[in-house]
Every structure is written in C-alpha cells, then in structure tokens.
C-alpha cells in the first residue's frame, strides 16, 4: 500500500544457528504509532538493527517511503528521515545538551564539512528551539554525562528530532525511568509524533505505556510475527496469551 511508510518483506537474520529474525513481513502506515511487543529474545531489537542499517539482513527487503533501503548505512538512513533511539541511552556524554543538538542539526544540514566557522555559533537558535520542544532548554549548558537518566532520554529524542525524521524507531524509550517520570516522556513522544506527523515504531515492555499510546500492536515471538492488531484484538488473542501468560491461561469469555 503506498500509504505505508515502512514495509518489510521476508526479512531474516540469523546468528549461527539461531534465527533472530525469521521471515518478518509487516508494514506501518504513515502517521501511525505502532508498538512492537514480545518476550525477551523475540528479536525486536535485532529487527530494529536491521531496519536502521546497523545489521545486514540475510534475506528479505526493507522499503522506506516506497524506496528499497535494504543494506543502506545508518548515516544514510538518518539523513533521509529515519531516527532511532536505543535501549541503553546513546548521546554525546562529553558535549553539553546544546552542543549535542547543535551537532545533530549541523550534521543533518550538511554543515559538518565546514572546516572554518566556529561551531559554537552555528545553528544555535534552531537547536534551542528543539530543546524547548523536549523540555531541556534550561539545561542547555549541562554536560550529557551530568544529566539524569530521564533527561538523557529526552536528549536522545531531541537528537532524533534534529534530523527531521519521518519515521522514529524507539527502543524501549521508557526503560529505566521512574514511575513518575514515565508519563511525561510518553506524553512528550505522543505530542511530538502527533504534531509533526511522524510515524513511530516503539519497542516496549511496559504494557501500560503500550496500551495508552499505541494505535496498533505487533507481537513478536522467537523472531517471527505472532500477531498483529488493535489493543483489544491482541488482548483477546489466545496465541498471545499463551506466550505471555503460559498455556493454562484462558481469557475470560
């Protein structure tokens, strides 16, 4: 469907004898907030690594905005509208918050091949605007390493925003956050995504988060897609129940 911003077909990747991602075929329409859930080892992060160009697939294809991107490098994909956050925070720890976003802005606008201008003056206003959006404007001069865990998560989102993404891959964005912080980050993600029309695919273990934001849910198990559907459909799916809750559980009729 040409409405789909992300399509995979028969995507596979194995490590030795283990099929980490097994013939995954799915599609995400533009503007949707899709959650991918599944038990540990289901292949969710490996799938993300394939989608973001970090890993080569052994078979299958990936299409982004209608064009094939199988095998493209992460930096290429980033420059063409794909952003990613990681399960373990990945920001520039020795840069200040402002410098972090400046860097991302400069890279996106091709300014990082500039050998002469003082970098501290480049794209300051745009970077500050992004910091406003994620609520980090008052910490602009703090080092990345000095930020709290939750704020580092925000910074990571700010970094992806600097690359003007059309698709965001978020790997457990609320991982490690306290109960009080989580809703704020979730709200932030929701707002940004809705406001900018960004499509988001989320790996999450926290079901509350999933249930509150996801438009549609994909369930993975042992590298393959087990089920896909709306929240209700997933909750009622016996295969999903079996995988999560054991064979003896039966949903109340």
């Amino acid at each position, binding site marked *: 469907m040409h409405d789909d911003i992300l399509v995979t077909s028969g995507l596979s990747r194995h490590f030795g004898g283990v099929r980490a991602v097994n013939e995954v075929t799915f599609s995400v329409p533009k503007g949707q907030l899709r959650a991918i859930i599944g038990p540990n080892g289901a292949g969710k992060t490996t799938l993300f690594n394939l989608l973001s160009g970090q890993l080569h697939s052994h078979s299958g294809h990936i299409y982004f905005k209608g064009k094939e991107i199988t095998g493209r490098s992460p930096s290429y994909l980033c420059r063409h509208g794909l952003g990613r956050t990681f399960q373990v925070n990945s920001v520039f720890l020795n840069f200040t918050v402002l410098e972090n976003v400046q860097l991302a802005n*400069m*890279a996106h606008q091709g300014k990082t091949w500039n050998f002469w201008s003082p970098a501290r003056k480049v794209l300051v206003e745009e970077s500050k605007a992004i910091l406003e959006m994620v609520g980090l404007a008052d910490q602009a001069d703090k080092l990345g390493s000095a930020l709290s865990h939750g704020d580092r998560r925000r910074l990571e989102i700010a970094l992806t925003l*600097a690359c003007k993404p059309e698709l965001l891959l978020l790997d457990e964005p609320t991982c490690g956050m306290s109960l009080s912080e989580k809703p704020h980050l979730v709200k932030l993600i929701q707002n940004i995504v809705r406001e900018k029309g960004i499509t988001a695919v989320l790996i999450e273990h926290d079901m509350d988060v999933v249930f509150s934001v996801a438009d549609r849910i994909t369930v993975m198990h042992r590298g393959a897609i087990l089920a896909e559907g709306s929240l209700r459909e997933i909750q009622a799916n016996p295969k999903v129940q079996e995988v999560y809750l054991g064979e003896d559980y039966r949903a109340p009729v």
Partner: protein
Amino acid sequence: MSQAGASRSAIIGTIVGLIVLILILVALPVIAPHIVLIDATDTLIFVLLALSLNLLVGYAGMLSLGHAAFFATGGYCAGILVKHLGVAMPLAFVASPLLAALASLIIGFFSVRLSHSYFLMLSLAFGQLLFTVVWKWRDLTGGDDGLTGIMPAPALVAPWAYYYFTLGVVLVCAIILYRIGQSPFGRALKAIKDNPRRSDFVGINVRHYQLAAFVLAGAFAGVAGALQVFFHRGIFPGSAHWITSADTFVAVVLGGAGYFTGPIIGTVVFKTLGFVIPRITEYWLFFLGVAIMIVALVRPKGLMSLWRTGRTKNA
C-alpha cells in the same frame, strides 16, 4: 568575581599571554644565542608535527603510531624533487604536503575501517613498511646515508631567515588547525570519538570523516617534513621509524591530547628536556622516561590538565 567577569579576564589573560609569546618568538634571533635559535626552529617543526597528530588522537580518538610515515613522506618528497628532479624549493615545499596527503589517503582508506587496537597496529605496520622502503631504496632515498645536500632557497639560508620562515609556516598551520578543531568538522570528529554509533545516527558517516581527518593530519605532517628537510639540509630514514612516531605521540599525550595547546606544551617540554638534561648527564632518555611515567600515571590527561580543570573538550 561574576561568571562573566571571570571568563572575560581569562580571555584577556590568554590574549595577553599569546601576544607576549609571539613577541618573544619574533624577537628570538635578536635576544637569544645561535644554539637556542636552532633548537627553537627544531621545536617549532615538531610542534607542527604534534599538532597534526592531535587531530587524529585528541579530536577523532584515532590512536596512530605510524604518523612519522607522513612526516618522512613530506620530507623525502621535497628532498627528492629538489635533488633528483631539480625542482625549485618553493614548488617542492608546496608539493610535499600534497604528496603526504596522497600517501595518507591510500593508507587511511585501508586503516579507518579498523577499530582502536587494530587501527593502532596497522599504523605500526604501514609505518614500518614505509620505513623499510625508505631505508632500503638507496637509489631513490640514499638509504642509510640519507638524502643530503638539500638546500633551501637562497633567501632562507641564514639561520634567522629560516627560523622566521618556520615560525611563519607553523603559526599559519597552527591557526588553520585551531580553526578546524573549533569548526563543525572538528565537532563531528569529537562526536565520533565520544560516541561513534550515535554519530552514525545523526547522519555522520564515521568512516568518511575519519578518512578526512587522517588525510588532513597527514598533509600537515608533510609540511613539517618539508620544513625539516630544508632545515637540516637533508633527511634520514630515522624520520620514518616508529620511534619518531612514538616520540610525537608522547609529546601529544604528555601535554594533553584533549586540549589544542596540549601538543604544543608537550613538545616544548619534551624538546626542552632533550636540550637541557644532556648538559647534566648523557642519560637524558632515562630521566625523560621517568618524567613521562610520572605524568602519565599521575595526570593521564596531560600537563594542560594542571592549568585547565573541568572539561577537556572545546578548549
């Protein structure tokens, strides 16, 4: 004192210090004895070499022990152009960084795909490969006897004249390297050093930038090599040996790889110890080694960290 006041006086202090330093350097031929002038020229050349290596080590986080290869390439190319091909010095001088850049493009192309320890070892391999070629290709390089009789342009023959020439070239190169370090490109290098994966994911193709840094570093090392060959009226295989790379590496890290001025301080200290200690004892390397050991274990961030506390970035 308020924040703004404190940083303003720091800036004024730095500028005043720089002016004083430059005045001293300019006045040197007048105020200092001949031997100091020679040592100063020598030191300036190695400051440039160290600054060029720091683009790799301090900014991009690429540890190389093969940098002398590009220093030697610059020097030998200039020498060969002048001696065997009758090229005039100015042209040879301009050509050598370009040839050194070419060498670093080729070597860099194969090297930047490797990570840390492997990159280091490959730099050793290529460095010694070049050393062996330079050492053994007697017809071209003079082998063990070196390439000798390389005269600078007549106007630069006098020691004070060559000193000013060196000072000028090194100052210009230092300013360029400083600007590069402060530029968006420099930031990209620091980003790669900080978090290569995230660099990829903000759109920085890590390999491309590493190669660019490698070529730039090689080019400036080539300039240093050219300065060297016309200064000493010749060049020897030792300039390509990994011992020269190691000395340069020490100078960079001793001063502080995370600071722009680190390699400058490191080279000055290294060279000064090398000029002063031999007056007292001939075993100066021993004491240099001990001094380096102490600094390395006590202040791994280098001597500059004694002055500048806090971040080493964006110095």
